[in-house]
């Protein structure tokens, strides 16, 4: 049975698209047929992060309007054969996404794919509501700071009241927390909220803690999902996210400050 996963946050710039790309790539690498959809109509980015911006011909809005069929719009990833990307339209506004249209496209995708990852736009307006409406699972991406936590909290409230599962009194959406841009040094110095502080407020199943990392920006610039950078801390943390989402138990990593080696301490001395 296909599962639709929405990557959402409320607040912008917290790492939704990075997370959506990593989640989709991670699932596909494990052999699951996966499609990742950009819901950010008018501000599409996913194609850049996935490195397929030069191969976009048709987009999500074209499919909804019947101007192209799904197979014409889906872009197969060059690195992983199980992964497909459905880009957003850059030229329209978010009203291009009608509920019936989105529902029909998702219904069709569910026939052939195991996982449908929806990259939500920021905000709680139409585009974000469309991205989460049909979701089975939600990954709420949060930065360890108060405004992001509050926006995530708001988003969780909307998930539990305005999604299809909520409105039809179905089993509620499974909600997961992903803490991104985490910097143990800044937590220790009190500039950032710690994992426990965020968990105390949001009280969710924590999928992973992604450390603040240069690898994320480098990966975006290169058009490679950061999960493919297996050497990097962020890449490993995203691998943990996918593993935990699929039910594996893994210890949390990257929560502690990097211990200074004896040599660096010595030479700084």
């Amino acid at each position, binding site marked *: 049975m296909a599962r639709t996963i929405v990557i959402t946050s409320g607040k912008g710039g917290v790492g939704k698209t990075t997370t959506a790309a990593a989640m989709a790539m991670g699932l596909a690498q494990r052999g699951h047929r996966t499609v990742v959809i950009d819901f950010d109509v008018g501000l599409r980015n996913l194609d850049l992060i996935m490195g397929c911006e030069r191969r976009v011909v048709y987009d999500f809005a074209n499919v909804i309007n019947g101007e192209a069929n799904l197979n014409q719009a889906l872009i197969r990833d060059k690195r992983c054969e199980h992964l497909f990307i459905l880009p957003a339209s850059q030229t329209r506004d978010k009203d291009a996404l*009608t509920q019936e249209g989105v529902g029909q496209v998702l219904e069709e995708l569910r026939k052939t794919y195991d996982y449908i990852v929806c990259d939500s736009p920021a905000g709680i307006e139409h585009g974000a509501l469309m991205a989460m409406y049909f979701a089975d699972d939600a990954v709420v991406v949060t930065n360890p700071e108060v405004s992001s936590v*509050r926006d995530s*909290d*708001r988003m969780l*409230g*909307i998930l*539990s009241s305005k999604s299809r599962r909520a409105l039809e009194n179905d*089993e*509620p959406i499974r909600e997961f927390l992903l803490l991104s841009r985490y910097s143990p040094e800044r937590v220790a110095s009190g500039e950032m909220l710690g994992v426990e502080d965020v968990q105390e407020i949001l009280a969710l199943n924590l999928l992973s803690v992604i450390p603040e990392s240069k690898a994320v920006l480098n990966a975006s610039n290169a058009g490679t999902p950061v999960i493919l950078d297996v050497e990097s801390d962020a890449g490993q943390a995203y691998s943990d996210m996918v593993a935990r989402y699929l039910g594996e138990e893994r210890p949390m990593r990257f929560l502690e400050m990097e211990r200074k080696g004896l040599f660096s301490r010595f030479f700084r001395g």
Partner: protein
Amino acid sequence: MDSELASTAPAFELKAAGFTLPVIRLLRLDMDAVEAQLLPKVQQAPGFFQHTPVVIELNALPSADEEVGFPQLVGLLRGLGMIPVGVRGGGAAQHEAAKAMELAILSDAAKPGAKPEVVDDLALELPVTGQSAKPQIGIETGSHLVDRPVRSGQRVYAAGGDLTVLAAVNSGAELMADGNIHVYAPMRGRAIAGLHGDRAARIFCSDLQAELVSVAGHYRVSDSIPAKLKGCQTQVFLDHDVLRIEPL
């Protein structure tokens, strides 16, 4: 291009709602004086005025015919971060001038002591508990039990009874009850007990960190809750006309 469904499905609901807005009651037409006196007030509480809709009241002006410097006033208010939305009172010429500035003309029904709270149009966003029967039983007996976190932006209203919450109430969430409110987890949002004026209603918290507590219209915001009571087991009640917050 719209399908049949899209054109017939309701796209909106028309509702009436009351709002409590700050009113700037003009006493004189000297806009420079208004500016000089308003500025320090805004500086005291910049957060309160930022993006706040305000109404300009003209009733207290000596004459309903004199020209009000709307362009200057609107510019001044906007410059301070407020959003002037309309005028109340005043004469026909003043209304014309206000309309020219895209201000609405609001009805002049100034009822002193009118209830500030919006009670007719509560958007009920009861968290889905999984068992839909639960909230309904709550309604029948006049009480609500909520066992999932109340998230920022959610409002829960127990009409005609008590509201009991077993999970955290987060900042930006709102609890309302005609009776008492009990919260057995961190209470970081707003709690409004005795919504319809029951002065005997109380609020009980096992961990008070509220943004606002109110009983029968008397309220206190977080700033005026003594710091030593924060995070403690407390009750909030009305003693004559004073809202008291005391440890349990």
